[in-house]
């Protein structure tokens, strides 16, 4: 069974481009200009924070500085001692892995991406998925396990008790009971957060609530077989696992 990886929005090899204005500065003035610029406009490029501010020009005595968008040039150019302004095309989305960063580097100096998307897949995942498919139950089911296979937790939907007990939430409760047990505390002490370095395999895509619960539990990888019609949290439209504001990211693989 082959899985497809869920990639962030706008992921492709060649970047989409956007027009920026660049200033050509004498090398002696560089520090002065940077100081003044950061004082006045330090949040200006907050959406493009992967671009470095300074690049060495082709001529020795000059330095190139990222300045602004074309529409703001008339307002902003007054206070700076600048030789020349000109427009260039730069990537408009941050790179997500090393290969993509190398392509981007031809355009401008790029910061190293802080999270990478390896193409490696878990060996056991297809087996566990087949195990779920073989049970032929109408309720959604999930399996949570770690790499050494010494913790394996199976859980089912319990929505007859209340609407919030989806299989992921039930699995987290079972994992907590496992960790509370004195004999099994080794795993918990080592990794501190509750499902770190663990993998989840489930039939239906986790909903928004479950995908956030997985972020709270610091999971590593998620595999699912079928997409949800409504309230799915890990599809092309809403990718909770890749959101910039949240404090954890994980890998998602899917079948269809």
């Amino acid at each position, binding site marked *: 069974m082959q899985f497809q990886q869920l990639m962030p929005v706008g992921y492709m090899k060649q970047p989409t481009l956007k027009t920026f204005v660049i200033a050509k500065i004498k090398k002696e003035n560089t520090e002065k200009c940077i100081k003044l610029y950061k004082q006045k406009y330090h949040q200006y490029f907050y959406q493009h924070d992967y671009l470095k501010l300074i690049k060495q020009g082709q001529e020795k005595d000059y330095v190139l500085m990222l300045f602004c968008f074309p529409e703001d040039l008339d307002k902003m150019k007054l206070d700076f001692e600048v030789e020349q302004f000109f427009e260039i095309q730069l990537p408009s989305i941050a790179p997500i892995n090393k290969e993509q960063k190398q392509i981007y580097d031809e355009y401008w100096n790029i910061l190293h991406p802080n999270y990478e998307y390896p193409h490696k897949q878990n060996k056991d995942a297809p087996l566990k998925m087949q195990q779920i498919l073989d049970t032929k139950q109408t309720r959604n089911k999930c399996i949570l396990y770690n790499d050494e296979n010494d913790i394996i937790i199976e859980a089912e939907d319990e929505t007859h008790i*209340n609407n919030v007990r989806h299989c992921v939430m039930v699995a987290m409760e079972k994992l907590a009971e496992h960790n509370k047990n004195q004999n099994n505390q080794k795993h918990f002490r080592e990794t501190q957060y509750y499902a770190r370095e663990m993998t989840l395999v489930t039939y239906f895509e986790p909903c928004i609530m479950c995908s956030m619960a997985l972020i709270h539990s610091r999971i590593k990888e998620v595999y699912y077989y079928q997409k949800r019609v409504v309230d799915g949290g890990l599809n092309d439209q809403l990718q909770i696992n890749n959101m910039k504001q949240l404090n954890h990211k994980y890998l998602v693989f899917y079948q269809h």
Partner: protein
Amino acid sequence: MELQKEDILKYMKLALEQAELGRQNKEVPVGCVIINRNDGKIIEKAYNNTNKSKNATQHCEIICINRMNRDLEDCILFVTCEPCIMCAQALNYIKIHSVYYGCNNSRFGGNGTVLQLNKYPSFGGYLEYDCMKILQDFYEEGNENIEEQFRHRKKQKQ
């Protein structure tokens, strides 16, 4: 029953008491109270229990839902901090009537800060300063349940 502003503040203070109880138990100080919409009686109250239960999904809203095991169409929730994305969606599933909260949750807020998920009416900004203060005090001391190297703590000024 029509909720007046004094009533809301009264219930928010009860939620703050729960948060204070949580802090005494070395949990993240967030607390909540659920009342009946018709007669104003308190049905359930809880505080976060993530560290003691070793389960990161045990936020106070989820604990209340799991204790009650029914739909809450006739209930109002008061909570000190804006519900996170997980709790906001869970409150959608159990069809809660409305939600009142204290401070915004700039990291995970699901009622408008990070995502706007709520299908129920929700109102923020009650006792905002007190709710924020109790969280700030907790994080300045540092979360004692986490080992020293993993703590997010402000560096002390010299």
